[in-house]
């Protein structure tokens, strides 16, 4: 049942070299640099996104994800969800408005897998980049590189994904859309949505805490995914796999790495979800096909290379 969580709001990614990272996310992937703050963080977004930013890059001495945030319907919803999380037994940290530039207060909690999540209701809306709200043109003519349209989801690795599933579905109102299960019913992957998409957040069970597999960005077409692959070759950027298709979600995809080793994905297509849809289940023995529908086997890096 929906509880007022609308969509992924932002992800803060740690990078080892800020300038290299900005080149990657802005010049190559086509995210728009929107702002910087006095901590040196860089704020970016895909051109179709109405809020001011969806990606925050922070230079640090290790790679990985600081936190991922979801935007909720309004401030009252934020209060009630915070209370629900507290009642569930989670400790919350409240970050004041302005801690992230032009973003309202955020409620942060740590999931049983060690990942940090946050909820917020307010962020400055600068509107879609390069197109107006009135009689809009189809697309901005000066978007760069892959022209990534929006931040779409993250895939994270951690141990207690059952604990995560309980919080996201029962407290935050997400829907379990797809899962990978072992013969004994043990879940090894969960894909969850707060929207009509196939996933807004996904987890794979691995014996580790707080690991970042990838942040993903939406492209309009399979041909855009192919051309993203061309751009990766032209810029000698490490490709992990693809262009190919996922079994899970059925989206077309390419995985690659940013200059600090964080994995990025751009993808197009994919299935949709209504609240009455039954959960789609993949058997663990079909994991290869579930992840990479054509190869039907995992590449070595899929399970081992994370930040």
């Amino acid at each position, binding site marked *: 049942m929906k509880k007022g969580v609308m969509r992924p709001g932002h992800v803060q990614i740690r990078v*080892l*070299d800020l300038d290299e990272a900005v080149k990657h996310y802005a010049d190559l992937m086509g995210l728009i640099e929107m702002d910087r703050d006095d901590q040196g963080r860089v704020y970016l977004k895909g051109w179709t996104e109405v809020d001011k930013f969806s990606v925050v890059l922070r230079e640090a*001495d*290790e*790679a*990985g994800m600081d936190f991922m945030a979801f935007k909720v319907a309004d401030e009252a919803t934020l209060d009630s969800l915070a209370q629900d999380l507290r009642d569930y037994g989670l400790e919350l940290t409240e970050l004041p408005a302005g801690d992230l530039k032009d973003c309202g207060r955020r409620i942060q909690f740590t999931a049983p897998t060690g990942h940090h999540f946050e909820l917020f209701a307010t962020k400055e809306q600068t509107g879609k980049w390069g197109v107006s709200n009135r009689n809009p043109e189809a697309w901005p003519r000066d978007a760069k590189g892959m022209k990534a349209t929006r931040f779409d989801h993250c895939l994270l690795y951690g141990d207690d994904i059952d604990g995560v599933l309980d919080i996201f579905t029962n407290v935050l109102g997400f829907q379990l859309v797809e899962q990978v299960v072992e013969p004994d019913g043990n879940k090894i992957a969960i894909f969850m949505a707060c929207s009509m998409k196939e996933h807004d957040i996904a987890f794979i069970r*691995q*014996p*580790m805490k*707080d690991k970042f597999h990838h942040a993903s960005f939406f492209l309009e077409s399979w041909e855009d995914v192919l051309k993203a692959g061309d751009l990766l070759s032209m810029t000698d950027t*490490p490709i992990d796999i693809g262009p190919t298709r996922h079994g899970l979600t059925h989206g077309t995809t390419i995985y690659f*790495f*940013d*200059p*600090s*080793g*964080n*994995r990025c994905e751009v993808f197009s297509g994919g299935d949709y979800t209504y609240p009455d849809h039954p959960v789609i289940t993949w058997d663990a023995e079909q994991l290869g096909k579930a992840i990479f529908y054509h190869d039907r086997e995992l590449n070595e*890096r899929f399970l*081992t*290379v*994370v*930040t």
Partner: protein
Amino acid sequence: MTSLNVTVVDKAKDTEVAFDAKSDQPVLLSIRSVVGSPIPVGCKGGGCGVCKVRVLEGNFSAKRMSKAHISEQDLEENVVLACRIIPETDLKVEILAETPEEDKS
């Protein structure tokens, strides 16, 4: 740019493999072999720890490496990430590939 020689010692397999490395880019990126790399390849960006090696001989400079995988002490012991070290002389390195459980973060 000059071409330097990098020797990779793999104690587990009891092998020594050498390849040519360029002096202007990280060691791991010089490996263009189609038959597979003698050093495990991950993210190529200093983030994942898969390409961890100990430099046994030779000089190098290093780009920033994730401290989740390379501690201060590692650095003192010449334990580094092959995707982040740029050779200044011929090098001899030993593979120390990390399993995920060994992650220091």
